[in-house]
């Protein structure tokens, strides 16, 4: 996108620029919306971004069928309604849906397991895009593989559309522990262990080394999947998440405005019990979405197993 008359040395879309963008989202909440009204509500509630979908994960689960990227026109209306960053999901492996999202100027693309994948084996090569990508991960190896493909942001997969944050907690702790393990090896100069680790888990050695050195994921890491209450949000932040994605938790509840607002508050002030309480007050348990207990799901209904 070269415009008229430019001096030397100004470039667009380097990793640093993508990195810059996502770190602006830190400490914030991104909400799933399906139309502009909901997007407005999200913005007024203090969301730092919205995720546009055709159907909320819960409905995706109930309807079955093939779930694709949301309608282009809907996405654009949303972009013309709010000022906060707009992101959208695309099917795993579907290069062209991503191409389109970039074309219409979406700020962040989520190559997501909520939609029906077109290729279970191969994810999109994200280095070819200027728009930053976010991917889900159940474990550190999965996260590093996505980063290796060019993801600028990572989130836990959890089990979408269940309103049950247990899987997200499990994934977050799994990721953290592996990081600490690598960090332990690194600090004690046991590179061999890191080598064996990256072989056994099929991840690139350099990235494992980098993670080991930094002691954290080299990119921003959000919590996602089953967050339904402010307390859930605070819990995830407490577990080291940089921010929170809320899926069906908000717009499948019957008090969306208040809930949205409360979760924003709880996320920002997670380490201040008083405020979290204040946030907890703004919602009522009766109104929260009807959840699903993970132990009740049949194997082929699990979304978290898609992609690898």
């Amino acid at each position, binding site marked *: *996108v070269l*415009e*008229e*008359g*430019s*001096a030397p*040395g*100004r*470039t*667009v*879309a*380097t990793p*640093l*620029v993508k*990195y*810059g*963008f996502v*770190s*602006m*989202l*830190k*400490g*914030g909440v991104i909400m799933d919306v399906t139309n502009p009204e909901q997007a407005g509500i999200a*913005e007024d509630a*203090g*969301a*730092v*971004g919205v995720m546009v979908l055709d159907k909320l994960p819960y409905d995706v689960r109930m309807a079955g069928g093939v779930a694709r990227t949301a309608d282009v026109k809907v996405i654009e209306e949303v*972009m*013309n*309604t*709010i*000022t*906060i*960053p707009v992101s959208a999901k695309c099917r795993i492996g579907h290069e062209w849906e991503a191409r389109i999202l*970039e074309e219409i*100027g*979406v*700020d*962040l693309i989520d190559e997501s397991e909520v939609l029906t994948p077109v290729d279970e084996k191969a994810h999109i090569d994200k280095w070819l895009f*200027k*728009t*930053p990508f976010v991917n889900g991960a159940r474990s550190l190896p999965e996260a590093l593989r996505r980063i290796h493909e060019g993801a600028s942001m990572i989130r836990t997969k959890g089990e979408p559309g269940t309103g049950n944050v247990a899987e997200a907690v499990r994934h977050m702790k799994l990721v953290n522990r592996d990081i600490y393990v690598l960090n332990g090896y690194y600090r004690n100069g046991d590179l061999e262990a890191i080598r064996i680790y990256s072989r056994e888990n099929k991840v690139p050695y350099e990235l494992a080394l980098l993670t080991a050195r930094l002691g954290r994921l080299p990119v921003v890491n959000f919590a996602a999947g089953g967050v339904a209450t402010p307390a859930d949000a605070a819990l995830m932040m407490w577990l080291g998440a940089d921010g929170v994605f809320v899926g069906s938790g908000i717009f499948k509840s019957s008090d969306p405005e208040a809930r949205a607002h409360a979760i*924003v*508050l709880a996320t*920002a*002030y997670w380490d*201040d019990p008083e*405020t979290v309480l204040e946030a907890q007050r703004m919602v009522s348990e009766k109104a929260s979405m009807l959840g699903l207990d993970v132990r009740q799901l049949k194997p082929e209904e699990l979304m978290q197993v898609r992609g690898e």
Partner: protein
Amino acid sequence: MVKVGVLALQGDYLEHYQLLRSLSGVEAVPVKHPRELEGVDALVIPGGESTTIGLLVRKKGLEEPLKQFAGEGKPILATCAGAILLAREVVDRTVGETGQYTLGLMDIAVVRNAYGRQRDSFIASVTLKDIGEVKAAFIRAPIIARAYGSAEIIGFLDDPTLGRHGVAARQGNMYAVTFHPEITGDIKLYKHIIQQAGR
């Protein structure tokens, strides 16, 4: 030992916080509650979402303390979202009037998302009056369309579609910039502010 505050409601306060700590003779403190404003000599407002930060400022009763903080003439450095927060007038390139809440401490008019979407973000160098050349990241950056009253634009940039436009403004000890020096790790602006903090 100058005590510099960083408004830590949302956004990348951490990058500021670490750069400031790497300066000798500076004590950096995160500010989330009104009471953490005491004894703060200077304040930095980081990047992030201006709507969110605005909301939280009101929500947590930081409105007044910040106004009188500015009233006391203590220097404030606002980056991007910060700049929007200080502006009196705010419009968006596509949405037009946003009617969003701001502190409105500076007499400037700001146009948000002026360069377009995220993929139009870039990195460039800017020359600021009295400060010198700064290398920074323009992330979904706004521009300062007009400065009136005692406010003046202290930095410009060329662009084929927008022509010459403002990217930094000053009014008393308040500095509003539309870019992110903390992303590229440039520390000139901080040094300048610390001097302003006197003693």
